[in-house]
Every structure is written in C-alpha cells, then in structure tokens.
C-alpha cells in the first residue's frame, strides 16, 4: 500500500475552512435544507420515477424492459426474461446495491450471471417476489422490481475493475457540475460502488475528464487497493457527454444540490443510473479540494453572496 501523505493526525478547522472543505453539518444546513425541497425527494428515492423522468426528458438511461408492481405480474414477465440476452433486476427503492441481480447469459432453462453462477427460473421468480414484498427497501415498505438492460462496462476501466461496474459521480450545484469522481468497486466493497462500503473514489479534472488522486476509506490513495494499478491519469471517454447527461438530469429533477451517478456503456455511452439528494463528502478528499470553494466560484459568477 502506498500512502503518499506524511500527514499529521488532523487538520485544524481553520485550515479546513481556508481550503473550502464542507462538513456534514454545513452541507445539511447550508445546502440540503434550503436547496433541496423535501417534496422533490420522491423522484430521487425511487429509481422507477427517476427513470420515467429521464425518458420524458430524453436523458439517456439504461433501457427499462419491465416494471413489476404486483405479484400477479411476475408470471407475465417470464416470457420477456427468456427473450432477453442479459438483464438486471433491481428494487426501485433499494439502497447500497442491495437486491440487485445481474444476469448476463442463459444456459438452457437456467440463467447465468457474469461469474458463471446458475439461477433456475424459480429462483429468479422468488427474487422478484422478495423485492416486491419489501425485503430490500430499508423501511420495509412494499417495493417494485425493475428489469432493465444489462450494462456493458466500458473497456477504458478494464484495468481498474475487479468486481462490479465502476460509475461516475457528478455533484452539481444549481445545475453546474462542481466536482466529479470515478467510483471503483473493490473486493472490500463487494462489487458495490459506494465509498463508505469500501469502494475507491478517484477525483476527475472537470475540464479535461482525466483522473487524478483518489480516496479509499477516507484516506488519500493513488493506487487501486486490490490490483495496485495506478488510478490517476485515466482518461474518461465521452467526458463531455457524461457532464451533459448529469446536467440534463439535475435540471429536470429540481434539486439544486445533487449527486448524479452515471454509467459508461461500451455502446450506448453515458447512462444515468440514479440521483442522490445527499451526496457524500469524501469526493472532496478524492479531488483534494473543498466543495465550498467551487460553490463560491459559482455564487460569485451569479452575483450571490459567498457561503461562509
């Protein structure tokens, strides 16, 4: 493991402040409460609604094959599943990648995921019914199951992928991107791209779309913890379209401070995965830069007062 920093154990609050670092309290009080009205959360918290919004605004997102709302619909969807080469089943209100089942292949009557594990039809049906009954929604409320197209991960990230699919998180303030980060799943995160679960975040230069240093478990990191590959200097393909897609969604969604997760498909390019009304703050460590600095640049441009 290579740790670049020879840092002391803490940074004084004054130093953090000078660098424009935003803390959780400040994010909640100065950004989320005033800028993200609660009434808009329904769309962000439900992937089916986010997807509907994308479709109506012509924002690219993975194609939805079916939305299963009732137990009676499960039977009807079987023919559809057999007609598809690959698909992903996910709960619309799941969090942290729980309940997501990706099928890449079919072997006779059985389905197969990317690792080669086999799933008989019965198991697929059972999985859908557990989603509907709310097993994966944190509140335990009944949920809906979404069947969508399986993403073909872009080859640009092959060297950095050990499990799961990397995605790109763009944080936007008043529809302007202020920070970006490539999120790489690790063994520790068990294939999920969430930073607090152990994924690596790699800061992206917004101008060029080239990655720089990263963050892992809140520490600055310059290599992938599983492979040891260098994570900086990777050119994100289609970068301008990634930004454009994120901006389109943030405009449509009505939240002024939002994180948009974008997937890069090898064929379809950037696709919106989901939006987040409370994007995390570790992105600052990945980019070695505070969010407040960026916010104030925009505030000054728009003639607004600076955020203290």
């Amino acid at each position: 493991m290579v740790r670049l920093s020879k840092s002391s154990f803490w940074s004084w609050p004054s130093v953090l402040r000078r660098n424009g670092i935003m803390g959780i309290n400040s994010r909640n009080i100065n950004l989320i409460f005033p800028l993200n009205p609660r009434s808009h959360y329904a769309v962000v918290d439900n992937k089916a609604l986010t997807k509907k919004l994308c479709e109506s605004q012509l924002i690219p997102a993975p194609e939805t094959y079916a939305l299963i709302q009732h137990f009676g619909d499960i039977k009807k969807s079987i023919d559809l599943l057999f007609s598809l080469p690959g698909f992903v089943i996910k709960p619309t209100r799941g969090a942290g990648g729980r309940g997501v089942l990706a099928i890449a292949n079919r072997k006779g009557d059985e389905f197969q995921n990317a690792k080669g594990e086999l799933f008989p039809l019965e198991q697929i049906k059972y999985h859908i019914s557990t989603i509907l009954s709310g097993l994966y929604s944190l509140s335990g409320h009944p949920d809906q199951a979404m069947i969508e197209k399986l993403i073909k991960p872009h080859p640009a990230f092959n060297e950095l992928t050990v499990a799961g699919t990397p995605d790109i998180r763009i944080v936007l303030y008043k529809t302007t991107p202020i920070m970006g980060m490539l999120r790489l799943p690790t063994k520790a995160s068990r294939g999920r791209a969430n930073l607090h679960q152990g994924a690596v975040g790699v800061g992206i230069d917004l101008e060029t779309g080239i990655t720089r240093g990263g963050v892992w478990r809140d520490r600055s990191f310059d290599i992938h913890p599983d492979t040891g590959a260098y994570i900086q200097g990777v050119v994100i393909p289609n970068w301008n379209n990634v930004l454009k897609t994120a901006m389109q969604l943030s405009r449509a969604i009505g939240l002024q401070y939002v994180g948009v997760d974008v997937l890069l498909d090898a064929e379809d390019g950037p696709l919106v995965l989901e939006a987040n009304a409370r994007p995390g703050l570790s992105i600052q460590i990945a980019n070695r830069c505070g969010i407040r600095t960026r916010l104030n640049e925009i505030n000054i441009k728009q003639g607004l007062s600076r955020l203290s």
Partner: protein
Amino acid sequence: MFNRNRTAILAAVILTAAFLLCVWLRMKYTWKPVWAHGTRGWRLTYDISFSFTKGDKIQIAIPDSTPQNRLWRETFSHEGILLDLLRNKRTKGRGASAVSMPGHERGRFFAQFDIHLRPDHQSKLPASEEKMSANDRAYYLRNEKYIQTTGPELSNILKQLSNQKITKTELLNHIFDYCAENIAKGQKDTFSDATNTLEHIVGSTLGRARAMAALCRASKIPARLVAGFILENNQQAKVHYWVEVFAQKNWQAYDPENGYSVQLPITFLPVSRDSIDIVRGIKALGYQSRFSISQMLPPPSLASSQERRLWNIFDLTRLPPSMQEIVSLILLLPLAALITTIFRNIIGIQTIGTFTPGLIALSFIHADWHTGAIVFVIVLCVGILARIILNKLQLLMVARLSIILTLAVLCMVLAVAVLDYLSLTPSASAVVLPIVILTMMIERFNIIAEEDGLPNALKIFALTIFVAASCFLVMKVDWFGRTALIFPEVHLLNIAILILIGRYSGYRLSEIWRFRDVTQTPLN
C-alpha cells in the same frame, strides 16, 4: 430576508430568558415559607445492623404516607445487603426486603423518613368505605399464637361484656373500655399474650393490645395489631402497639394504652400492620435496631403545598417519593438526548439509533449494572446470532423483527433465571432492559454488517455503547436528577442548547481527522 441563524439564536435567548423567569418565579412564590398553623415535620431514622447466617432474608417495615402524615422524602443507605422495596398485598404496607450480599456476614440498613404532619387534613378525612373479602375477613378473625381467640377467661369476659342485647358497636366500645381501664398496665416483662393478660388482668402494651384484638376476633369483629411510632423528640424511640378494628366498613384505630379510640392523634405513625415486628427475618438472626425521631422544619415548598394553589402543579417535590423517583428519571431522558446530540452533531460519532444510547443508559440507572451488563451482552449475542440464522430464511421484516423480539425476551428471562440460580443476582430488581430498543439495535447491527461490513458494524456498535456509557455516567450523578425535579424548567435551557446545536454548521470534531488528507496531500 428571513435569517434562520439569527432567528435560532433569538429563540435560544428567549428560551433562556423564560428559564430564568421560571426560576425567579419559583423562588419568589413557591419557596416563600408560609407556614400554616400547626405544620410540623419529623424525621424518623432507622439504623439496623444484622449478622447473617446463609440464606437470610430480612423484611423491614417502613412508613408510608397517610392522609395526615405525608412522607415527603426518604433516603436509604445500606452496607452488605441488597435492597428491594416491596408492598404487602393484604395490608398495603411498605417494606424493605434485604438479602445478604455474597461474602458479607454483617449488614447495615440506614434510612431516614421525613414526615410532614398535616393537621388540617384530619377533618377532611374521606370516609371511604372499604370492602373486605371473605378471605381477608377469615384472616383477621384467626386464632394466633399470641392472640388466642378461645379460652375460658376470654369467654367469661365476653359474656360479661355482652350480657344484654347490644349492637356490635356497643360491644366494641365495651371491649375497648375493658382493655383500657380494667386491665392494669404492667411492667415491660409482664404478660404479652392475650390469654395471660386476660387471666391476670395485667399486661404490657402489647399484651393489652393483643387482648383487645383477641376479644374482637372472638366477637367476629376483624382486628389486627399495628406497630408504629409516636412522633416526639426521642433518640431511642420505642415501638408502640395499638389495634385496628374493622367496623363500619373502615379500619378504626384503638389504643388501649393511651385511651384513644376510633381516631388516633396525628403523631401516631403506623409502620407495620398485622405484624408487630419492624424487622422480620425469615430465619432466626441477630440484629440490633435503633430508631430515633427528631423534629425538623419541612422545606418551604411543603408549606405552600398546604394550600391548593394552581402553581403547585409545577412543584414536583410535592409528589410522593416513589413518584418523584420515576419523574426525575423521565426528566433525565432529555439530558441523555442532549449528550447524544452533542456526540453526533458536534463530535461526529455515529450511533445505532438516535435515542438508543440514552434509553440503554436509563435502564441501567436503577439496576445493578454488573448484572445488567451481563444480561445485555447475552441478549445481544443471541439476538445477533439468531438474526444471522434467520437471514437464511429470508423472512419479511415485521415477522423477522418479532422473532428477534421474542428471542430477546426469552433470552433475558433465561439469563436472569440462570444468574439467580448461580446466586449471582440475589436482587429481583436486577434488570429490565428496553427490549424493543435492543431488538432494533440487533436489526440495525445486522443491516450495517451486511451493507458496510462487520468491522464497520462493530465500530458503530462500540461507539453506541461508548455514548450510552457517557449518558449513564452523567445521569448517575444524583445532582442532575434532583435539580431537574426541583427546576423542571431547566429543559427550556436544554431546548435552547439543542436549537443552537441544530444550527451549528461548523466542522464536527471527527471531520478534522477525516478530511486531514485533503489539505495535506499534494495533488500530482
């Protein structure tokens, strides 16, 4: 423009001012001593030391509030024993039950009861009618070792007393007159049982009381003995005995020694009914007891509570001691919430659940915390294991939670039973853990372990326990509970502080550590 921060500060200032105003009003109005005529306070002190033999269980009768005597404060301290407060089912009397702590051969019980006499309440005595069950009736008519309801002498006397056709009330008066006047007062060592007292027409205080009870019982009037104290300055107070007779649907007191009937002076403080011993051991034991009584001035707040004024509602010290205990415990909960808020929003410590630490701490306040901790750990371990096994079944959430709740209950009960079997927890009041909170804690622990990995879950769990322990240590300080009881308005101040914390947008303490690499690592 509406400035939230300024408004929040203003609200906090207003709340603080309201708090100060409340304190000032309280000092001014409720603390002014306005003594009603004849108001007196007494302090009864128990000092009892025992030497144990194995398995001894001691019961000590203690006073309770009566319409005229209000118990407004009590303090207990003890050495070498584990204490429980109980209430007798039949007589409703209060008692302290003590067992020896393992490894202790001697024990000491020390208690102070501050009693406030309210003479004006005497006249307002509600003539509440009591019903006596056939069972109780038979019980209070029974033949006892020292209250013998049969015997030639007793029959003779009863025949004499009821030679004409008279009512029961008249008979009762005759019996009382006979015991008070005809039976001579003997020395301390004279007869103290009913038969001998009646036979020799001389008896001790106890003997005369027993004689009266025996005569009543033989005449089918339920009667019982009362042991208590007469409140007067006395460093060596002796236990006094009198009789209570169930007549006209009420227990009426008779004191043959001093000649009081139907109603005793308010200085008579009953302590133990139907049993003449203040200290009772289930097995024979040696003990020394000393009771002392001294006059004292009740606090001014009691003086004003003589009158029914509306603001007395805000004076929680008027509540009976047992309720005061509960109220002060409830009043501590916001303090725990404040501590948790500080830990979460200012220090930046994650906890499982918002109020979990406070509620766990609360449940430990009155329990023996060693036992509590053992049971806590057992319940958690079993719950988490069960949750892991249940996960394989993929049950729906409500059913799953209910199963964990059931297991937690079973586990807690079983743990208490096992600890009792191993004589590790001799006190029954040991543990009542907040089961629902525990269940949610187990559930959250498993979800975090599943989503963010076991190390993360263990970390958050340990932090939750740390915050709970901090809450416990603060809540354990008596001063906070007492202050909150006297000045419940202190919680206005609590709200003011919470408003300020709620608008605190600075860094959390954990963030100066979390974000240290942003400023210290150069970007290549």
